[in-house]
């Protein structure tokens, strides 16, 4: 234990020393990798600025975390108790999962005042992963336990109370860990569009124009640090709470969950529910505007936005601007997604041949997948400038790490017996990989694609907004600044529709490929 600690400390010191040495070599006149000492002294020089900015971001993220998770947990309980509700809200859930959060910021600023837009954005960023994790936990109840509870006269309420709620805790805590860093990401993305005085997002935006590498690195590290701290606190709570409660049920004897099966609805009812699910996000949008009674020019509803794009006086112009932006954003997001996924799959496959590779990469990947990706933007700027390469790189970076974690876990789940059959016939390690591991793990490729496709879009849009000044990200940024309400809303809606369509496309491909 102490030996391992010592070794880790030695490696950390060595890395810092190399970094320090490299940092003193300028690349193209700019010190791309400012030495750790420079970053440290910049912190000291900026410390009062940092304190204010960090305090604002932590405050926003904490409130977003609390409200987003409260909504997520209540929604998960409602969805578990009344499965039909989940079907009705399917469209809303997919939308909240797939939406590139950066497009929501400018819309929220139009609708809400003060610090609220960032808090709401942070809560929205948190909602889906926590809701999904909680729902999985609630649903994943031992059906024999349900039988026991029913046999002594209990109903669904008793099952929820005695089995589901406590049983969902490990899954919920895993979701909360992810949510911790997402709340920071949401807060920072919200700060970009809010025009607020304080917050790391504001600080980042203001520092991008200055060639102060040490400060840009400092902001990146600070944002990462906050997210990691949140993750770490929850990991500690998790360890404290779950210490001795390991599930003891024999998984093999489990029946498929009753809830997962078709609930015996007629075709008409099923189609009706699906249509309602698709309409629900638009109905909610209209309902919120109706309740708040906002000026339809600043906050147009679904019909107004449709008219703006297809019937209004500037419709043709607006459509052209939107399509131009999409034409520059989407190929970039697609390329980034593809490259990131391929890299992750190849590395995950290689790590079967060279297990030390997983050991070396996994901790870093686990850490970086829960890092707010915008924190990487300044570093990408320093290394790659404001080029197209910057968008692509950011997209690949945000795709690669979560995809690698998921795929490496998929490769680890390949049944041992299947591998041993090939081994028994004298099959080499490579043969085993080609014959068993790769075909088996392809299914996880789709899961990974669904998970990271929205991130690829968000990565490209963040790069466009902050760095390259092209595409949809830039269009939203300039519309925000010039208060071009029509474009803000229609751009946000277009991004959401594209993201949801991409998600559905992967789902359909998955269903066609995997039986």
């Amino acid at each position, binding site marked *: 234990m102490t030996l391992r600690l010592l070794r880790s400390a030695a490696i950390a010191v060595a890395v810092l020393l190399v970094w320090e040495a490299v940092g003193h070599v300028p690349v193209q006149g700019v010190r791309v990798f400012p030495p750790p000492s420079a970053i440290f002294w910049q912190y000291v020089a900026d410390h009062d600025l940092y304190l204010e900015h960090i305090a604002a971001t932590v405050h926003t993220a904490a409130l977003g975390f609390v409200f987003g998770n409260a909504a997520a947990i209540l929604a998960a309980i409602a969805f578990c108790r009344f499965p039909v509700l989940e079907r009705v809200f399917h469209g809303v859930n997919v939308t909240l999962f797939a939406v590139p959060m950066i497009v929501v910021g400018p819309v929220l600023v139009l609708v809400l005042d003060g610090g609220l837009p960032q808090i709401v954005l942070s809560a929205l960023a948190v909602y889906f992963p926590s809701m999904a994790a909680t729902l999985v936990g609630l649903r994943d109840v031992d059906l024999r336990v349900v*039988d026991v509870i029913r046999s002594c006269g209990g109903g669904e309420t008793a099952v929820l109370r005695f089995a589901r709620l406590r049983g969902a805790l490990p899954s919920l805590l895993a979701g909360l860990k992810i949510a911790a860093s997402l709340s920071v990401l949401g807060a920072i993305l919200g700060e970009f569009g809010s025009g607020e005085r304080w917050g790391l997002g504001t600080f980042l935006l203001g520092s991008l124009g200055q060639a102060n590498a040490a400060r840009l690195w400092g902001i990146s590290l600070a944002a990462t640090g906050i997210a990691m701290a949140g993750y770490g606190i929850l990991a500690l709570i998790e360890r404290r709470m779950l210490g001795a409660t390991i599930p003891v049920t024999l998984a093999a*004897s489990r029946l498929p969950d009753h809830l997962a099966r078709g609930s015996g609805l007629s075709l008409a009812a099923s189609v009706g529910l699906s249509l309602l699910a698709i309409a629900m996000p638009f109905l909610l949008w209209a309902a919120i505007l109706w309740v708040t009674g906002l000026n339809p020019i600043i906050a147009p509803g679904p019909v107004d936005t449709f008219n703006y794009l297809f019937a209004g006086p500037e419709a043709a112009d607006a459509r052209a601007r939107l399509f131009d932006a999409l034409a520059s954003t989407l190929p970039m997001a697609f390329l980034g997604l593809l490259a990131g996924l391929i890299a992750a799959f190849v590395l995950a496959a290689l790590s079967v041949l060279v297990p030390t590779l997983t050991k070396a990469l996994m901790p870093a990947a686990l850490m970086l997948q829960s890092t707010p990706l915008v924190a990487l933007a300044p570093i990408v700027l320093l290394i790659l400038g404001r080029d197209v390469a910057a968008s692509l790189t950011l997209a690949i970076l945000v795709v690669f790490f979560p995809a690698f974690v998921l795929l490496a876990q998929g490769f680890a789940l390949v049944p041992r017996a299947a591998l041993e059959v090939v081994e028994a016939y004298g099959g080499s390690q490579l043969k085993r990989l080609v014959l068993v591991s790769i075909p088996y793990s392809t299914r996880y490729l789709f899961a990974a694609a669904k998970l990271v496709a929205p991130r690829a879009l968000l990565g490209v849009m963040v790069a466009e907004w902050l760095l390259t000044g092209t595409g949809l990200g830039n269009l939203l940024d300039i519309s925000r600044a010039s208060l071009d309400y029509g474009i803000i809303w229609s751009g946000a809606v277009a991004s959401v529709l594209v993201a949801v369509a991409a998600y559905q496309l992967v789902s359909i491909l998955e269903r066609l490929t995997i039986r």
Partner: protein
Amino acid sequence: MNVAARLASMEREVRHDTPVSEPPDVFIDHVTKVFDGAAGKVTALDKVSLSLRRGAFVAIIGPSGCGKSTLLRLAAGLEQADLGAAFIRGEDPVTFRARGELGIAFQDPALLSWRSVARNIALPLQVLGRSPRKHAADIRKLIDLVGLSGYQDALPGQLSGGMRQRVAIARALVTNPSVLLLDEPFGALDQILRRTMNVELERIWMHRRATTLLVTHGIDEAVFLADEVVVMQARPGRIAEIVPVPFPRPRDPSLMYTREFQDICARLSAGLYGESAG
């Protein structure tokens, strides 16, 4: 058809056995259950009838897919019949179980991993809205009865498979049920542990005398524990024969080595493998 004729005569026999003055504790009346499987419809139970008088211990054996577990789940109200019905003391099982007089245990102990042994055993009491604290003494006695003294605060993860299964048995007994339904409760245990548990179950049953329906794969287990062994056949699930087990109680494990015991086992396996018994 030979089987149908035998079935009819057997049903008559079962009805005949039941005195008019005392209705059967568990009564399964011409139950049919069809499942939609991946390979089409499967008739799990085809017009099956069975009755258990008060205080009886009946075991069901049969090949996989003969519907024996489905029969037990119907008796517990966990499954609804397509045709026919199950009754416990003349009531619908769903009505009956709300009284807290039904105990149930499965092949999987199905314990809550976050609850201690004592709190797992107390679960049915809590579901019924009774105070586990008032029944603390009963729970203690049950823990002693299933041989887990000193483990009341242990978590399921700290116990062996056999110990967990004993917790599940104790949980099934905590409401002092008048009807006990056991679905292969020792199916996941090894042969040695299984025999020990059989002896313990017989001892516990002698203590409580609940009307018991046991579903099992083990012929010797069925013969050792039951007053009557029901042999089922698959596709469609039907009762092939009912064999009485005349041994006096309490039964000693040495019973299993007697000629009479072996004879009944031989007769049952003949029935199971579809050969004519005799």
